[in-house]
């Protein structure tokens, strides 16, 4: 197996302003290897992959690729050299055609003197799509007419078409449906069979264990361990990720699903084009109600509609008789909402911790309709202390915090105003296991105090570990209801999701 090194990374260091992302990482990548890269968010795995893919330029350390020093100045150049990456975030551009996205940044190949040969461009793009077995999308389709999954497939087609020697896949599978994943896995195997390398980044340990030949564990920007297939063992990997053995309970220890009969929130017959198709549910006092499904089953939209951030075309949400029409009424009725997209929706990154926490608590902070710094600071400090938010001061901008601390700020903001019901959309996405555990315990504690939760999650273990009741959604409908049970297995649930 250990034949030829294709890429050698020596002592890679990278800093973003005040945060250190990588502190001296050495990784050797071999031909024909599927390498898993695993670590909590902020561990540096995305930073590392973006460095080799040419997105980040200024870093310290050395890259040796195919025996030569290597320093790509952008993604296109990296790809031309044989390193292609499918990025975690949205990687396609709206309002332009599929073909233009596939050949973004290298249109100069199709034509000369800055002019374009459209025909050739479209032909090549269709070829790229055919290559990975996509026939329902054509080169002249506009990106905005495609759904998220198909857009991701375009990115995959784009990278694969260049036939790179190293393919980097950064948390892409979460955005894909079952069919999409099968396409991706086929590509990965095809690469391996052709003696090319794949770097697979994922939070899904099962996926990694199944697909990878080797695993590299990163934590806090440091390399923790390289693992061979023989060493793959879930608990051991988890321990490496966190850096210590987790003490105390991780999830809930009890298996009791009895909750109060009091209904605190009622969802009736919600319909929304493409997303929701007649959703009904009741949330009881002190209940943790889980909602699971595939990424695009409509559960994220459901969360937004419940909070009044989006409007349904039919049906309504009510809390003790009050209809929720917008965020304001929702908040008045004691509802809080933690968005899945933390950096863009839940927080204002270029505002301080203080501003982010106090923004929903101004009604509580104000005295005689005025807001004084003294009261505000006391209010915020209390939350900062309760949630143990690590920052220089409460005046620090949220953008400088780690993922876990950012999420703590979001929690603190809603708990500070003493919300009775929280809609949590993927609340532990990109959060360290340690923080994750703390949050789970907090949720449990609050549940015991009589707060109610709607927990929307893509992680099944999180759902089975926490909820009293679990609703599975598919194509905008609730397809199955499970109650908390020791025997509840993930494979039972998955069947209702796909």
């Amino acid at each position, binding site marked *: 197996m250990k034949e030829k090194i294709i890429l050698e990374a020596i002592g890679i260091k990278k800093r973003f302003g005040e945060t250190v992302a990588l502190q001296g990482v050495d990784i050797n990548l071999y031909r024909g290897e599927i390498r898993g890269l695993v670590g909590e968010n902020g561990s540096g795995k995305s930073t590392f992959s973006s460095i080799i893919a040419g997105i980040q330029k200024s870093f310290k350390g050395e890259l040796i690729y195919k025996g030569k020093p290597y320093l790509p100045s952008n993604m296109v150049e990296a790809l031309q050299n044989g390193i292609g990456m499918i990025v975690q975030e949205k990687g396609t551009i709206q309002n332009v055609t599929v073909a233009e996205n596939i050949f973004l940044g290298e249109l100069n190949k199709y034509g000369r003197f800055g002019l374009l040969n459209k025909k050739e461009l479209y032909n090549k793009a269709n070829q790229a799509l055919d290559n990975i077995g996509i026939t329902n999308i054509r080169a002249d389709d506009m990106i905005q007419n495609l759904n998220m999954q198909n857009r991701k497939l375009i990115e995959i087609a784009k990278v694969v078409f260049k036939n790179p020697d190293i393919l980097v896949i950064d948390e892409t599978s979460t955005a894909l449906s079952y069919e999409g994943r099968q396409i991706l896995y086929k590509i990965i195997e095809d690469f391996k069979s052709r003696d090319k390398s794949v770097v697979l980044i994922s939070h899904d340990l099962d996926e990694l264990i199944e697909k990878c030949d080797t695993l590299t564990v990163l934590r806090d920007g440091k390399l923790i361990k390289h693992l061979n297939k023989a060493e793959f063992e879930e608990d051991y990997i988890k321990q490496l990720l966190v850096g210590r053995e987790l003490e105390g309970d991780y999830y809930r220890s009890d298996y009791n699903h009895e909750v109060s009969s009091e209904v605190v929130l009622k969802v009736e017959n919600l319909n929304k084009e493409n997303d929701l198709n007649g959703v009904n549910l009741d949330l009881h006092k002190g209940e943790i109600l889980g909602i699971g499904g595939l990424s695009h089953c409509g559960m994220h939209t459901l969360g937004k509609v419940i909070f009044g951030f989006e409007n349904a075309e039919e049906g309504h949400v009510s809390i003790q008789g009050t209809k929720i029409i917008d965020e304001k009424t929702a908040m008045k009725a004691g509802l809080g909402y933690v968005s899945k997209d933390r950096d863009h929706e839940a927080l204002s990154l270029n505002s*301080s911790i203080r501003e982010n926490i106090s923004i929903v608590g101004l009604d509580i902070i104000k005295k005689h309709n005025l807001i004084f710094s003294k009261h505000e600071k006391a209010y915020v400090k209390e939350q900062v202390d309760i949630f143990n938010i690590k920052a220089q001061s409460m005046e620090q901008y949220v953008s400088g915090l780690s993922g876990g601390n950012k999420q703590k700020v979001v929690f603190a903001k809603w708990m500070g105003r003493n919300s009775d019901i929280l809609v949590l959309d993927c609340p532990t996405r990109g959060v360290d296991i340690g923080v994750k555990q703390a949050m789970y315990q907090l949720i449990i504690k609050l549940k015991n105090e009589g707060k109610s939760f709607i927990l929307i999650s893509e992680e099944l273990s999180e759902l089975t570990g926490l909820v009293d009741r679990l609703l599975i959604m598919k194509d905008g409908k609730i397809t199955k209801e499970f109650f908390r049970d020791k025997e509840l297995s993930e494979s039972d649930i998955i069947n209702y999701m796909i």
Partner: protein
Amino acid sequence: MVERFTNKFSGLKRITNYSSWFGLIALISIYYIQMGESITAYSMGIIIEQAVIVAIVATGAIFIFSFGQFDISLGAATAVAAMVSVITYNRTESIFLMLLASILVGVSIGVIESILAVLLNLPVFVLTVAMLSILSSLVRVLLGGQSSISIPSDAVAAFDNVPFKLFILICYFLLCFFIFNYTKVGRESKFLGANPIAAKQSGVSNKKITIIAFILVGIGVGLAGFLTVIRAPMLGQTTAASLGLDVLVAIVFGGMPLSGGARSKISAAVVGAFSIVLLNQVLLSFGFSSGQNQIAKAILFLFVVFVATINYRKKILPR
């Protein structure tokens, strides 16, 4: 190592955050050196006189800028308010009604603009471009075919003094300062500018903030209209025409980020307005021509903003 870097970095940040104040102090110093002994109470007085109107409108405008919006029609709105107050005085001969009319007109324009923006779901900037045309044609309509309309200068002579104008500025500034820093509206508008989606998810109503901001600006516009009449009781087609852009320049000069958000500060309006007036005085003392004056102003303007934002550079170009 990391620690030291951090400290140095935030120290620099702190300094550039106050660069507009340094700019003001520098201008005061240059003015002092240039004018020397000829600085009198009169000099101070005219600096205040000349800054007051811009400062008032700019103070109100900070609200609109704080949530990342942009109003280009403020000058025309002030002109309309001033016109109406002149007409009101000529009908009623009451200074009080004149002030009231001016504020009412200012507020009404604000309400109409914000309601159009909110109900019709129009982008504020483009809306104000259209409003600029509408209001300037309204000015001509109010002129009714005359080259100018006026009130007797004795009528307002009692108010034509520095203490009164300063008093109005201070009152309005305190009102805005208070609302901006000590009420929900102020906090919410800053947060709205920083991240509109997060603000919406935190229950901040874009509509409410927009309407309140425009009403506050409207009060400022009304006061400015009134003061315009006091300062120069004869109004014509071009009255206050360049005020809108003077306000923009002043606010930017004062250190207000045009994108709004957390770094918004209400003091930028007053700092900026006084800086611009002092800059004019300094340039005058050098004896430049109109053209040279404007070039010097433009270069300084870019320089000040450049220094103020030196810590907020991104990899991609700002838009």
